């Protein structure tokens, strides 16, 4: 996935919401914030895999000298003297809209409803396509299956609004070892329902450890 910037040697002093903080070399803004118990919401972040930056809920506003921008905190390392704002108007605007759209995209997810309510978003103006949907295509399951488990039994199919989570060639995948990592990292529990569409026939497993 996205390679991080080369680690710096010394600790980095910067501020989050006015509070002075210290990041160890290689830490991202999000990791630093978590270390200091500063809450930044995330859906697609998991410490076990490389950050992917798809949910954009972790965006923060940064100011460095005269330059200011809104960036995802899970992917960006801090620099000295950087000012980070986790609740600025622009940041909250992004989060509120993403959450409102997610309420329409994954109406069945309790986790998203709860998170949206934290930002005062309780209703959605957007059309609901599937009332049973929970998957937000964050890619955590795909990442964990490939990076941690190393079997690549899951993948994304199609593109854009048609993007779906599926197995290669859309058939139950015998590469799946049934470890359940994907289910455990899923932020909405969407994978629990569809695990059987991923997992192949146990009796037909081949390869190391499954020799017949």
């Amino acid at each position, binding site marked *: 996935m996205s390679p991080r910037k080369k680690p710096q040697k010394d600790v980095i002093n910067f501020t989050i919401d006015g509070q002075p903080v210290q990041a160890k070399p290689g830490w991202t803004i999000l990791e630093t914030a978590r270390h200091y118990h500063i809450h930044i919401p995330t859906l697609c972040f998991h410490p076990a895999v490389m950050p992917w930056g798809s949910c954009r809920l972790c965006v923060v506003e940064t100011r460095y000298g005269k330059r200011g921008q809104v960036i995802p905190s899970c992917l960006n390392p801090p620099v000295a003297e950087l000012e980070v704002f986790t609740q600025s108007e622009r940041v909250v605007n992004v989060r509120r809209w993403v959450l409102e759209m997610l309420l329409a995209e994954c109406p069945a997810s309790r986790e998203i409803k709860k998170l949206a309510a934290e930002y005062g978003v309780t209703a959605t103006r957007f059309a609901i396509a599937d009332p049973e949907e929970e998957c937000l295509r964050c890619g955590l399951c795909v990442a964990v299956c490939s990076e941690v488990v190393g079997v690549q039994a899951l993948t994304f199919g199609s*593109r854009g609004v048609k993007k779906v989570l599926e197995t290669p060639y859309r058939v139950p995948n015998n590469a799946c070892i049934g470890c359940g990592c994907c289910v455990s990292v899923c932020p909405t529990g969407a994978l629990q329902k569809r695990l059987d569409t991923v997992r192949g026939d146990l009796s037909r497993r081949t390869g190391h450890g499954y020799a017949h």
Partner: protein
Amino acid sequence: MGKLKSVAELDSFRAKLLAAPARPVVRVCLGPGCLAQGADKVSRAFKAAIKKQKISADVKPLIKETGCHGFCSQGTLVNLSPFDLFYVQVKPADVPEIVDQTLRDGKVVERLLYGDNGNRYRSAAEVPFYKLQQKIILKNVGLIDPLDIEDALKAGAYRSLVKALTQKTTDKIIETVTIAGLRGRGGGGFPTGYKWRKAVENARDNPGPVYIVANGDEGDPGAFMDRAIMEGDPHAVLEGMAIGARAMGAEQGYLYVRAEYPFAVRTLNIAIEQARSLGLLGKNILGTGFNFDVQINRGAGAFVCGEETALLASIEGRVGEPVTRPPYPVEQGLWNRPTVINNVETWANVPHIIDHGGQWYSGVGVPHSTGTKIFSLVGKVKNSGLVEVPMGITLGAIVEEIGGGVPGKERFKAVQTGGPSGGIIPYELKELPPEELKLDKVGLQGRGFMTMELKNLPVDFDSLAQAGSIMGSGGMIVMDDRDCVVDVARYFLRFLEEESCGKCLPCRLGIKGMQEFLNNFSQGKGAPADIDALESLGRALVDGSLCGLGRTAPNPVLTSIRYFRDEYLAHIVDHHCPAGVCRDLITYRIDADICNGCTLCAKNCPQVCIMGAKKKLHTIDQDACIRCGVCMDVCPVDAVVVA
């Protein structure tokens, strides 16, 4: 001809080519516009007609199938030298006459000359469309046969490469490009010299290969600048890349061309083969010890692969999805090595800069935006086509003088620059409430405003950004009063929704969500507060999206709300589409005083819902009408009106 083993051999080869006696040349434009008008048939007709004529071989006219001449609305275009004649709208049936009159007797076929306001122009240089243009990059496009490297050599190709190989050090090349002030032509406008220097520094810190990439994944609707270069003068791109490779110490280049450009791929492949066979690409180029080769990668139909990180992923064989920058490609690009990726048009500028020097180039255009830029001028404009103008020329000069203004009786309304990522700039200066004018540097994009009238607005990177739009890759769509901004914004969003890769949520869900708002507006639904909500959602996309596609997607919406809020309000409050475009808000009516009962509308109506006897008034059954507008288009007396 075998491989050229030294610079001297290239020079003598070029001299030999130039020494050949000049023959009359017929240059038939085979650009996309002319091809659609049957340029290939014209070219075949010329060849057949000349074969019939009994002329000795040394004075036999040469038929050259060239790249785009630019004046697409007048295709098929034919240039004849040494007569210096420019014929427009040539059909295969005109060819025997041209051969008999002009090529044999040297007479002018008056009716094929371009005429405008009673004037007839003999040569292309006199035509108003070409007069204000300054051709640097397109100099050889339309002049040379793109499939023949000897023709390109005669026009001076690879002269700058020789200069770069023999007279200039790596630093000197980069310095020249920096002095020239060249900025990326793909839309971002990043200083090219600075990018190159960064790549060289990164490679020095971390020894290993460096890669060169040319981005020819031109996907904006209605844009064909890069296509014209790749199809018309492929060696300019290859030479530019080779010079860049020399500066960066790269040995491998990649040319990423979209699969929808099969002619460009074919032309480039032939050009690469010919350059290799002459030893201008490959190992030990011209005996200088410099190695460089180019490989073509075809896209697979994804617009997002024009974004540099997605493009690199695609070349590596991964899914074409962008990743967050930093790290930038000059730090970690292809296979985690420093990679310089520039647009095809940027590369095509490089040979000219090396040839004439950085000082000369920086003298063209305006400070901070130097050189020329190619635009594809399309839409409601009389002379549509490809234009190359110096930066800093006013929009008014492009649209009204080069483009000849808006045809018909409608009023000039706005210009959309930069394609789906750009903004709509109104013709009239709009009075904006003072709170709108507070310019925040933090989020300049989409927040700019007009401080001067469109016709005086200079076309350069900074002025367009100031006006809330972008230069983009050079699309320029002219709109008149019959174009509805809500509908235009909806069109671009529909395009981007199709093309979003779906990786990040603001882009995948947001573009769809913005469309839902606009669909409602176009049906007259919604409340005025929804316009503010749409604006706020647009800002969320600008701030939240991962790559340039999502970050710029709201621009057409944001700028059209800024300048044409009254039109949005007309849709929502009055349920009325002022331009008469949005189907749910209009009705077609036949004016009783004008209708002469010709029955054309009734014959062409797909719903068969127009009634009326011959020579009697016709009427439209509003319940069955689908508002396709065919009746309006076919009516010879303009009796069909939209209300």
